């Protein structure tokens, strides 16, 4: 990209931000005369690390409003609570994050959500990766979510542990050492031979990466069927499940089994207490990093381990794991204020700020193109050019159709079976059978 072009874009971004800010200020001024229209506070519900801490403070001072950030560690738990809040019309935040695995379920009931289209700042719909924007809309065209991030993939690795094991530890060398998953296993075996430890944290870490490196259906087909629609309900067998015939699912599964058999997993189930502690203790040296995972790696590892992690390319090419939208539940008492906040949190500058803080990768094209973003290197990760690593693969992301209860099937059926395999509770065939057995009940909606 030429310098002038970049400048132009930068200028455009600045102008856009200025317009947005002015717009917000004006709206705020208008709202003031109305008694009671000013909320005491707005609540933002997120899970994991969204990197909103500083942005929220900034918004608070600029708008003289109190904002509360509610975080939940585990997405499954987050979803269950949200379902209940929506069901009862009480308890949900004014702005809630919806992850790709659960948003389709929530789209089934559009009445629960505010149509953000009416509140969006001018031209917002055109600012984002188009597929991402489209996925935030219901079938009847209502915008229920402003895009936050995509989970563009890389691999986080501990350069100090690689170095101690006498292996290549510079990021380019590491990237080059594992172009494919088979090569990845070879590297893992090498690490194990030197250290006696598992290299990668868990099987599900790998699975999530592989799952989205393929195209085609995962657990549901395009029409949200769990079973091959050609088979009559009475004749359905586990082998008729979409999941049983999906090449992506199969590839993800087989790769995990190979890794398990090679013994290069450290057997710390992702999100478990052992896993969280393992970051500090060096229980494992590699974990798959969608960009939003950077914040989690950092939070788990602590300041003492700054500079020890680094970011390399993910084996098997790029991929996408996760990514979210911000929505406003219809039960919010301050819908327009909440929508404005959601608009602010997803605008170009905010997305870059959040990225720098915790890693969620921008979906706003202006943000992706801004030098503020592209030039960023992450000091915690040994100054890895994270923006470059993640930003380049973002263009290659192909949207995959995820069914209504994708998150539930993935976590409670697919990952549970893999964790059982990893911990030695089941062998590979048993685990596969268990997975297929659990799909119908977890996937029903």
């Amino acid at each position, binding site marked *: 990209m030429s310098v002038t072009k970049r400048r132009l874009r930068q200028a455009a971004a600045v102008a856009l931000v200025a317009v947005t800010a002015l717009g917000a200020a004006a709206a705020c001024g208008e709202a003031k005369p109305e008694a009671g229209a000013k909320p005491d506070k707005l609540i933002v519900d997120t899970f994991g690390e969204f990197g909103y801490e500083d942005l929220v403070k900034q918004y608070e001072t600029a708008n003289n409003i109190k904002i509360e950030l509610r975080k939940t560690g585990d997405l499954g738990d987050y979803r269950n609570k949200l*379902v*209940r809040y929506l069901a009862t019309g009480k308890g949900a935040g004014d702005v809630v994050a919806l992850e790709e695995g659960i948003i389709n379920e929530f789209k089934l009931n559009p009445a629960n959500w505010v149509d953000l289209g009416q509140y969006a700042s001018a031209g917002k719909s055109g600012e984002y990766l188009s597929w991402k924007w489209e996925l935030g809309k219901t079938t009847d065209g209502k915008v229920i979510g402003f895009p936050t991030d995509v989970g563009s993939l890389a691999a986080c690795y501990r350069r100090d542990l690689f170095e101690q094991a006498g292996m290549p530890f510079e990021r380019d060398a590491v990237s080059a050492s594992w172009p494919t998953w088979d090569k990845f296993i070879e590297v893992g075996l090498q690490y194990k031979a030197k250290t006696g430890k598992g290299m990668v944290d868990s099987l599900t870490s790998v699975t999530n990466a592989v799952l989205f490196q393929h195209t085609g259906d995962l657990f549901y087909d395009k029409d949200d069927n769990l079973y091959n629609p050609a088979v009559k309900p009475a004749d359905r067998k586990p082998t008729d499940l979409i999941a049983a015939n999906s090449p992506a699912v199969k590839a993800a599964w087989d790769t995990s089994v190979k890794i398990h058999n090679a013994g290069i997993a450290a057997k710390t189930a992702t999100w478990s207490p*052992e896993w969280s502690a393992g970051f500090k203790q060096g229980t494992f040296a590699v974990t798959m990093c969608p960009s939003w995972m950077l914040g989690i790696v950092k939070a788990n590892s602590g300041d003492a381990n700054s500079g020890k992690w680094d970011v390399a390319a993910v084996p098997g090419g790029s991929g996408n794991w996760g990514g979210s939208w911000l929505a406003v539940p219809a039960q919010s008492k301050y819908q327009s204020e909440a929508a404005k906040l959601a608009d602010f949190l997803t605008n170009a500058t905010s997305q870059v700020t959040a990225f720098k803080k915790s890693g969620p990768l921008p979906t706003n094209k202006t943000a992706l193109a801004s030098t503020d973003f592209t030039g960023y290197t992450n000091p915690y990760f040994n100054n890895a050019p994270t923006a470059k690593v993640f930003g380049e693969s973002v263009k290659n992301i192909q949207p995959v159709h995820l069914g209504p209860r994708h998150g539930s099937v993935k976590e409670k059926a697919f990952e*549970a079976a893999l964790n*059982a395999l990893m911990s030695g509770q089941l062998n590979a065939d048993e685990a596969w059978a268990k997975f297929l057995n659990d799909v119908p009940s977890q996937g029903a909606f």
Partner: protein
Amino acid sequence: MSLSATTAPPPAASPEQAPRKPRLAHRLARFDLKASPYLYIAPFFIIFGIFGLYPIIRTVWMSLHNWNLIAPDRRSFIGLQNYVDLLSDDYFWNAVRNTVGIFLLATIPQILLALFLANTLNRGLRWRTFFRMAILVPNVTSVAAVGIVFGTLFQRDFGVINWVLSLISVDAIDWRNTTWGSWTAISVMVDWRWTGYNALIFLAAMQAIPRDLYESAAIDGASRWRQLWSITLPMIRPTLIFVVIISTIGGLQLFTEPLIFSGDSLGGNLRQFQTVAMYMFEKGIETTTTAGYGAAVAGMLFLMIIVASVLNFLLIRKSVR
């Protein structure tokens, strides 16, 4: 316990005793005497009826339906279908197996330990109150706190318990991901909280035993072990059975400890420690579309508790007669 009448209240004051009372006051006094007992017990029965009894009856009603917790228009009567499905539901039977297994693994050592502790406390001790308080203090701790603290103690990689085991060269145990490990960890949480409490209950019963029984037995040359066996245990048998019943009702409803240990209602990768109450929660509250099925799980659990209680009740009658 005796339900026999205690001394009856005296009859209402007769006119001779209060000659100047006007008729209205007299009537009021009569009304007071007749009605106030019912007024005094009414709050209990009304509140219990609404919030205790009615929901249980309604559980049975819901269990006969395909019940969507949040969409009233998506409910339909399906008779016993939920129960039929339940009988062939592997995960339900798995939960039953886990519940009974954890119950036995927790209760048997707990009662033995409590008996031992009670027997130990039932001696001429210094610092008696201190010892009693110290073994009761776990009972004051909330289940949520127990879950959080023990969840950390039982961690695989950096938990204190595995560290202690490593001192005697035992390899790290994966407490969450093995059936026996998880059952043991949960049983330890339950027992930690309840052993001291039950020991005090047993102690109370033991102190009610006339001491001369022991004295004579000792003079007869009965060993201490034999005294425990042939005096203490038979004498506290009603209490023992009482404790067993309460533990059964509590144990069959076990929920919070495994929930916090697991972090969700599934109870491990293979549901190796999902209890019936957790399954009820999963189907009835978490999955809003299957509330009827969850109610059926509650119905079955109710049945299990009734059966267990009746068995215990028969035992009591037998032991008391």
